[in-house]
Structure formats: structure tokens, C-alpha cells
């Protein structure tokens, strides 16, 4: 039962018809008259090298080539393609040090596929042919593929400001002893009856969003630089491009095209600096670049791989007395948001369980790998893989049911959250666990599988997680929204929030319609052009529905207030005594004293003067609602995932049988969208657990930047999925809603590993968990 008009309904996503019919216009589909085509020439000979000489003369002779560019032919200013620099205060920025370490084209190749030259030609083909004629001489440098190698004495420094190639560690001023946590972990371990401890490796996973990278830019005759891009963050890209090219923001326009998936790969910039620099060099010509799919693995950020060590102590009754952990991630060639995952990975440890004491260290080191940045979950899946396996190992030793242990020891309302100082205001994890366990038939299956014999062994596993809704207090949170009421009392809602396919424009429209009390079809959106809407930090941190929804709600309330004030004047009533229904405003209890919203809106737009009085008959002025919204909380959602699978002990193969995703949504604004997010996340979480990894030759060449060898689960690989969505409205979220964008990916990672543990009694500590690793472990166990 719901008292709402559209909130809680699975309204059809507003972009779905255009996408299904192929009519959606992506950046690649845009062809402006006179477009020239760019090609970024990349280094595929080395993963670490200095460019000794670059000869572009033969390339320039290819018919159709307009101009060739060496690094010094474009701006050589340093920049950072990510957005951490504009999301934190000056104090915090100071603690990060110098984080602008990228150039548009480089003479110091730091990873396979780094860009060394550019070509602009009348056709893509001419640009391609010219690229083949470029002559480069390299001085190879030692290749570092992990933190141990890059931090050793005498290693080549990636940037002078970061000794030992340590890009980041938790900064002392904010984190004493460079650690995060509470209590004294060493003392805590003294009280432990059992200790579980292990070293893990979490892999370099790629978002592999459906749309490859295409960009267009035009520096026009009026001195306006326009860039068409499917970035997740148009309003953050705008000031970054303005800064890079010394332009006022009024001379930079970011037009967000349909975003064919982001998942973090489009957080900030990818090739926007390149295409804008080329456009600035050739004023008046639209320049377009279309990367091959294979370049996406090399140019847009991936998940951070790294070494994760964790140790936990427990009393016999299961009391978790202490946790000590360290995540050392391999940053890749450049900083990007190098501080973020090193910090949040520990945040997700601190947010989940009531450890007696916690000590976490997070460090980032440069490596000669393509860059890392945001990927759905932002450190949380790595933590889930490690933390949840060790919890299950302890539960096994202590003979405690893993579901019961989690119910007893997870953090709850009032406990300090994943970021210290923001206590949880809502938590439905107990109900999520209970309902999830029921849906998968947990107890019966655990008992049954404990008795099994034979070649094929079933297992059922659980993992829980907590995530966030928006990035406060760690990062800036801000969205601006305006609501304009047309003369017929329909509304145009303008904001810069991104819809990457997750359904946010649909759900934000529902929030607008619900708040205004208007039918859904009476609300349209104005989105896409950075100049048409106020600030929004961009789509990341599962924030769009939560923060954007808060902004939409506030702006709609502002418009509604203005509408009711005018109605009150016309009806000679107090605004507080008015109600709106079916766009009629009436005095509570006196339904005959009413005025149509359209009459007020029309009167505002058409305030004709009365010839007799010389004054307008109506209240003049078009109603414009406005909000500049900063949320006061981050309303973390909790989740529990149950996975059932079967391990073939003769081949190590895993067959996924069933999965239950339980999620503490607060309020499902659009249940189908929530389910879509959970299932999409599950596909990526299962992929991370079982198949997905970018891997390298010893000299740093990426070996599988193609769908031939970067394997993601397809529809036929997916298990049967049941979503359990628990609605327990949060006091801060719009209509009680919390996030779901990233959450669905997290717990499937730990739950899959724990299901394998349940099936064969082995924990695999390296991701992904392949049949090769399972069979090897089984053989070793058998031999022992």
C-alpha cells in the first residue's frame, strides 16, 4: 500500500524506447558539417619508456592529413583527468600534494597505450594511415607491475613529488600513524581466542561499459569551446577544461550526449582534454575522435588491483575483538583520484562490523599499468572479498552460523558510519538477512551440503555490505535544480544530473511529479547542456537519486510554495490551509473554494493590464522553483547477498545456481529500476569473483584488452536471481530513499567466495577465482 501517486511505481524508463530502437544519439552518431577526425597515437612497444625522438614528417605527407601534433604542439600543462581536486577543500587538497601529473601527449610513457602524438585528418582512414608512418625511438625503462617493484630503492620516479612512487597514504594530520580506525588493535588481539589472517590479491577489473569512447569538440568563431561527451560529470569537466586552457567557464560548454554506461569509467575526463586541445589548435573545425573498443581498457580508469592483508581476532563466542588490515593498491601510471580508494577501502571495513578495535592502512603506488580510478563500489568489492571470507573462516572455526554472526555483529542505527562522525540513521540489515535466508532456504541447504559426497559439490554462501548515498562528508555534495512552471501548469525541471542508463532521469522525474502533485507526463526534464542547468558534481558515489532527488524535491517544494502563496492570495486563505489535488488548489474542508493551478500559472505568464485599473488582474511572474542543495547525511544502504553454486571437483568449474540479492533501499522510488541496479551490479560482482581480470606480459603489455579474452558473464552464465527489497524509510533520503547504484556489485563478490568455501572447504585468496586455481587448490588439499 502506498499513498503516493508515482513514487513506488515501476514507471517505464524514459530513455528505453530510444535505446531499444537504436534512435538514441550517442557522441559517435553526431556528425557536424566539416568535421575533421583525430587519432591519438599510442605507444604499444613499451609500458615504460622515454621518447627519444619523434618524427612526424612522413605522417604529415599522407593525403588528407590536416595537422600532426607532437607533445609540445599542444598545451604541456599538467592536469589530472579525475575530479578529486575540485571535490575536496583546500586543506584536504594540501594533504594530497601535487596530483596533477598528466599531459595530453607525453614523452615519458608510463603505461602500455600512453598517448605520444596526435593526428587530425579529413577522414578517420587518413588519420589511421598517417599514424602508421610515425617514427619513434624509445629509451626503454624498467617496468614495474606492482607496488613492491615500483617502491624499491633506485626505481625510476614517476613524479618528483611522490618519493618511492608512493602516490598516497592516509595523511598523518587527519589519520594519526597513517591509520584509520579506533581502539588499540594490538591490545584487542590479546583477548582473542582465535585469529584468522591472510594475504589476498584483488584484480584489475574493467567496467567495459557498452559505449566506446567518442568525443567531439569545436572552438567556434565566437571563442566558445564546445565539447560533446558522455562523461558522467559534465559540470565537473567544465571547470577542469576551463582551467586547462585558461578560459573563463563562460567560454566552455559541455554537452552531455547519451551516456552508454559509466560505472566510474567516465568519472571526470578521458579524452576530453585531447579533443579540446585539438579543437583549440584548429579553430572553426569540429574535431571528432572515436577510440577503438580496445583502447578503453588502456585509457579510462579501471578498478584498483592490489595486495590486501587482513587479520581478525575473535573470542569463542564470536565477539570480534580486533581487526588489522592493509590495502596496497597498484595505481597505474598516473594519480587520478589516488587517495579515494586507498581511504574508502578501509571505510567499508570500519562501517560494517562492531570490532573492539580497528586499524587500517591504505597506500597507493604508481605502477606501469593503465590508470585506476572509480569503478562501481569504489574499494568496497575488494574489502568484501577479503573481510567476508575471513569472517566465514572464523565462523567455521567457531562453529557459528555465518548469518547469525552477521546479524549479531553488524553496525546498526546510532553506530558510527563508514566515515567517522556520521552515525547510521537507518538500517534494515536484520530483515534483509532474514528474508534473504528464507528466500534461498539457507538453513536447509547448509545442513544438506555439509553431508554431501561425490564429484559435484554444492555450496551456499552469504556476504553483507554497507555502502553510501553520496560522498559527504569526505567529498563535496551539491546539486542545483530549477523548476519552471509553464502557463498550463506543467513543469520543466532542469538539472545537470547524469543518467548513465541507471534510470536516474526517470526516478528524478517521479520525485518531481510526486512533490509537485502533478501527473508524471506533466513534468519534463531539461538536461544535457552544462550551460542550461546549475551545478551538479556528477554521477558517482551512488548519489544521483539521493542528492539529486533531494535537490529536485527542494526546488519543487519551492515552486509549490509559490503556487500555494498565490492561491492563498486569490482565495483569501492561509497557504497552510491549502491542498493540491489533480492540479486544483482548494481550502482544506471547503472543496468549493478552489483555483486551478493552470489559472495561477497562466496569470503569471500573461499578466494583462486591466484597462480600468491600469494594473494586472492576475499575479504576475512565471513561477520558478530553485534549490542549491547540500545533503546533511549519506544514508548508507545495507545489503546481503546469498549465492548458491556447484563446484566440479574434477575440473574446478563453477556453475552458478541461484542468487538472492537483499537490499535495504529505504524506499524504492521505482522498484524495477532498483531491481535493474541490483542485477546489473550482480553481473559485474560475479564477473569480478569468477572471470574478470586485465593481465600483463612481464614487460607490461596488456594481453587481453579485447572481449575475446576479457571475459564477462553473459546472460546464459547468470544464475536465477531473486531480489529481496526491504523498504524501511530513511529519515534523510527523498521519500525515505537510499542508494542502490553501486551496492549490487559488492556483496556478490564475498558471497560467491563463501559459497565456494562452503562447497569444497577451500578459500581462494586471489581474484578471479578460476577453475585453474580451484583445481590446483583441490589437488594440493588432496595431496596434503
Amino acid at each position, binding site marked *: 500500500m502506498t499513498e503516493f501517486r508515482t513514487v513506488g511505481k515501476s514507471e517505464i524508463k524514459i530513455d528505453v524506447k530510444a535505446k531499444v530502437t537504436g534512435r538514441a544519439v550517442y557522441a559517435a552518431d553526431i556528425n557536424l558539417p566539416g568535421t575533421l577526425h583525430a587519432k591519438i597515437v599510442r605507444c*604499444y612497444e613499451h609500458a615504460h619508456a622515454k621518447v627519444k625522438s619523434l618524427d612526424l614528417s612522413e605522417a604529415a605527407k599522407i593525403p588528407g592529413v590536416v595537422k600532426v601534433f607532437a607533445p609540445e604542439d599542444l598545451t604541456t600543462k599538467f592536469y589530472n583527468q579525475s575530479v578529486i581536486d575540485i571535490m575536496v577543500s583546500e586543506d584536504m587538497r594540501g594533504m594530497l600534494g601535487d596530483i596533477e601529473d598528466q599531459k595530453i601527449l607525453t614523452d615519458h610513457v608510463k603505461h602500455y597505450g600512453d598517448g605520444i602524438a596526435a593526428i587530425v585528418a579529413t577522414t578517420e*582512414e587518413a588519420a589511421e594511415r598517417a599514424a602508421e608512418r610515425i617514427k619513434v625511438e624509445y629509451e626503454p625503462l624498467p617496468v614495474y607491475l606492482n607496488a613492491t617493484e615500483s617502491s624499491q630503492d633506485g626505481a625510476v620516479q614517476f613524479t618528483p613529488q611522490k618519493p618511492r612512487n608512493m602516490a598516497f597514504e592516509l595523511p598523518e594530520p587527519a589519520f594519526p600513524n597513517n591509520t584509520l580506525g579506533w581502539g588499540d588493535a594490538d591490545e584487542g588481539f590479546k583477548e582473542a581466542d582465535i585469529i584468522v589472517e591472510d594475504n589476498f590479491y584483488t584484480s584489475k577489473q574493467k567496467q567495459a561499459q557498452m559505449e566506446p569512447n567518442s568525443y567531439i569538440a569545436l572552438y567556434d568563431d565566437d571563442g566558445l569551446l564546445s565539447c560533446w561527451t558522455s562523461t558522467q560529470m559534465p559540470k565537473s569537466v567544465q571547470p577542469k577544461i576551463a582551467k586547462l586552457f585558461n578560459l573563463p567557464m563562460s567560454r566552455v560548454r559541455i554537452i552531455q550526449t547519451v551516456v552508454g554506461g559509466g560505472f566510474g569509467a567516465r568519472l571526470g575526463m578521458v579524452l576530453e582534454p585531447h579533443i579540446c586541445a585539438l579543437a583549440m589548435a584548429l579553430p572553426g573545425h569540429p574535431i571528432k575522435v572515436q577510440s577503438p573498443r580496445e583502447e578503453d581498457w588502456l585509457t579510462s580508469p579501471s578498478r584498483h588491483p592490489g595486495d590486501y592483508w587482513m587479520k581478525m581476532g575473535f573470542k569463542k563466542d564470536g565477539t570480534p575483538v580486533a581487526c588489522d588490515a592493509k590495502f596496497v593498491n597498484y595505481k597505474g601510471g598516473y594519480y587520478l583520484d589516488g587517495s579515494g580508494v586507498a581511504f574508502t577501502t578501509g571505510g567499508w571495513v570500519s562501517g560494517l562490523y562492531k570490532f573492539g578495535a580497528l586499524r587500517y592502512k591504505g597506500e597507493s603506488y604508481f605502477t606501469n599499468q593503465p590508470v585506476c580510478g572509480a569503478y562501481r563500489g569504489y574499494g568496497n568489492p575488494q574489502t568484501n572479498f577479503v573481510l567476508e571470507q575471513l569472517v566465514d573462516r572464523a565462523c567455521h572455526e567457531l562453529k557459528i552460523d555465518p548469518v547469525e554472526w552477521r546479524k549479531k555483529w553488524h553496525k546498526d542505527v546510532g553506530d558510527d558510519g563508514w566515515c567517522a562522525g556520521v552515525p547510521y540513521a537507518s538500517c534494515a540489515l536484520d530483515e534483509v538477512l532474514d528474508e534473504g535466508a528464507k528466500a534461498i532456504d539457507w538453513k536447509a541447504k547448509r545442513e544438506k551440503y555439509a553431508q554431501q559426497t561425490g564429484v559435484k559439490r554444492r555450496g551456499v554462501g552469504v556476504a553483507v555490505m554497507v555502502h553510501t548515498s553520496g560522498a559527504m562528508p569526505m567529498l563535496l555534495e551539491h546539486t542545483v535544480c530549477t523548476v519552471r512552471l509553464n502557463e498550463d501548469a506543467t513543469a520543466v525541471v532542469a538539472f545537470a544530473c547524469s543518467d548513465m542508463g541507471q534510470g536516474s532521469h526517470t526516478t528524478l522525474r517521479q520525485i518531481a511529479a510526486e512533490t509537485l502533485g502533478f501527473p508524471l507526463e506533466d513534468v519534463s526534464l531539461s538536461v544535457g547542456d552544462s550551460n542550461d542547468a546549475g551545478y551538479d558534481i556528477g554521477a558517482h558515489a551512488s548519489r544521483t537519486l539521493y542528492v539529486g532527488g533531494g535537490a529536485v524535491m527542494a526546488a519543487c517544494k519551492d515552486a509549490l510554495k509559490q503556487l500555494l502563496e498565490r492561491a492563498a492570495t486569490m482565495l483569501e486563505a492561509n497557504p497552510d490551509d491549502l491542498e493540491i489535488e489533480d492540479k486544483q488548489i482548494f481550502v482544506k474542508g471547503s472543496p468549493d473554494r478552489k483555483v486551478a493551478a493552470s489559472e495561477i500559472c497562466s496569470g503569471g505568464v500573461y499578466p494583462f493590464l486591466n484597462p480600468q485599473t491600469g494594473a494586472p488582474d492576475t499575479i504576475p511572474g512565471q513561477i520558478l522553483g530553485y534549490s542549491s542543495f547540500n545533503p546533511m547525511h549519506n544514508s548508507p544502504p545495507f545489503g546481503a547477498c546469498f549465492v548458491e553454486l556447484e563446484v566440479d571437483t574434477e575440473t574446478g568449474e563453477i556453475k552458478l545456481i541461484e542468487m538472492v540479492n537483499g537490499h535495504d533501499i529505504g524506499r524504492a522510488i521505482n522498484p524495477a529500476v532498483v531491481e535493474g541496479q541490483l542485477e546489473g551490479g550482480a553481473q559485474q560482482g560475479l564477473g569480478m569473483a569468477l572471470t574478470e581480470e586485465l593481465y600483463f606480459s612481464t614487460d607490461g603489455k596488456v*594481453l587481453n584488452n579485447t572481449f575475446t579474452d576479457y571475459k564477462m558473464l553473459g546472460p546464459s552464465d547468470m544464475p536465477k536471481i531473486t531480489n529481496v527489497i526491504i523498504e524501511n524509510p530513511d529519515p534523510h533520503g527523498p521519500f525515505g530513499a537510499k542508494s542502490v547504484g553501486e551496492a549490487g556489485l559488492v556483496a556478490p563478490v564475498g558471497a560467491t567466495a563463501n559459497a565456494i568455501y562452503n562447497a569444497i572447504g577451500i578459500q581462494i585468496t586471489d581474484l578471479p577465482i578460476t577453475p585453474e586455481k580451484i583445481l*590446483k587448490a583441490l589437488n594440493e588439499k588432496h595431496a596434503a
Partner: protein
Amino acid sequence: MSTRILTEFELLTPNTIPEALSILNEFRDNVIPIAGGTDVLVAMKFGFSTEYAMSISAIPDLDYLSFDPNKGLRIGANATISQILDSKAVKQHYPALWQSAKIFATPQIRNSATLIGNLLRASPAGDCSCAVYALGGSIVLVSQQGEREVDIDDLWISYQNTERRSDELAIELRIPAPEPAGRSAFKRLTRVNEDLAKLNVAVNLVMDGDKCTHARLAMGCVAPTPLRLRATEKLLIGQTLDGSVLKRVMASVKEEINPIDDQRSTAEYRKSVSGVFLRRAIEQACDIS
């Protein structure tokens, strides 16, 4: 590295077999014949270049698949994997081939890729190649010099090289008539369901009651070409397929194969599962559970 722009080549589209043979005769090693193109065009995206590509898709009457209980199966050069899959005769009489077609790539690729193309690309991982190898048969090659039939056992010479001369066109695959007591099966291991094989295996047995009288075993991804497991076959002939025989078979296959580490798996893993997989294919063919 890949490119969005294919390298330049001249596309030739003969309308008859004589026209095609004349093209092949003229350009020899400088022309590559294409049927479905699903492999060659992908290779072009990753650096393979050719001066001429000759598509045979406009040549009529090469897309046949015909079955005669006495003569066996005949498959034309333009017959697609989807056609194999649609054939009741293949499903009934050549289960190994049908099973390999069923999991072959994706529906879109099955609609375009051809069986003969799969054989002629000579990939050690070709699923249908593995099945055909176990079933046995021959490829009909024609040139301006005439026609010859090459036994499937002699087709693959080395990695991606076949017995086909550059002036020859493969026009037909012939698979012998099914034995009344014949049984066959195909199995493979992959990273995800829609994938290239990391190991594939096909068996073709003739049984006299419990006894195996004839065996052809083939395995893929374990050598530079699809591999026939001749030594292991001998362990089956004249034997009842009981546990001890299957154990010997499993031990033997490990010795016969020579796999490598690559993007899809490791040599160690392939060796350790090869016996299990062969045993399971035999069990599947013979309905042993």
C-alpha cells in the same frame, strides 16, 4: 593493436566456381577466400592484411547440406553453422557435430560462419573442427587442375596451415555414413558459456554390445592443430568400457597432448583435466552415467 579502419584490400566476388578458380590461380598467396568472414575480418582488425579477399558468398548452390543414409553427409562451402544446427539428420546421426555447432560462438556468428571455413582456418581451438576430426571424412578441393579429396586426417599441417594449395577452393565436406552402432559426443571447457574453447574433445565410437570396435578421438587446444588421440584410441578397441579401461584412457591422453599456457588457460590445467574430459565425452556418447 586494433583499428577501426580495416587495412586496404581488393574485394573480389566471383559468381561461379570457375571464376573463383581463375581468381585463385591468378593471385595465389595474395588472395584469401572468405565464406562467412567471421574470423578473417576480425583478424584484419588486429593487423592481418591481404592484397585480395575473395568472397564466395555470391556463388550459388554451395550452401547445401545433404544427408543420405548410405553415402553420408555432404556439406557445401557456404553452409553455415546455423544450418548444421537446423539439420535433424546431423542431430540424429552425428551428435558430436551437432553439439559442437550448438555451442559455436553466438547466434549472430552461427548465422554467418561456415563449417568449411571453420575447418580451413585451422585453429587448434575450432569446436566444429574437433567434432569433424573425430567423425572422420574428407574435404573436396578443386582447382583449374582438377579435383582432389583430402582426408580430414591429412588436412591440418601446422598452426593455421592446411593441405589446401593457394590455387584451390574447398567446396565440400564429406562425412561417412553413420554406423548403425556408432556413437559420438562433443564436449568443451570455456571461461564463460559464449567463448573460445580452452579445451575441446570429440569422440566417435562404434560399439558391439559392450565392446568398442572402432574409436576416433579428437582433442583441441592441446597442440598447434586439432589433435587425434591415436594411441589412446588403441586402448579402447576391443575393450569393454569399464572403469579400468577408462582409467588407462585417462592416463594415456595426458601423454599424448602437448598444451601450452595462453590467454585462456594453462598447460598444467589442460593436462590435468584432459583425461576427465575425454572420459566424460565417452560416457556421454555411450550413455554411461
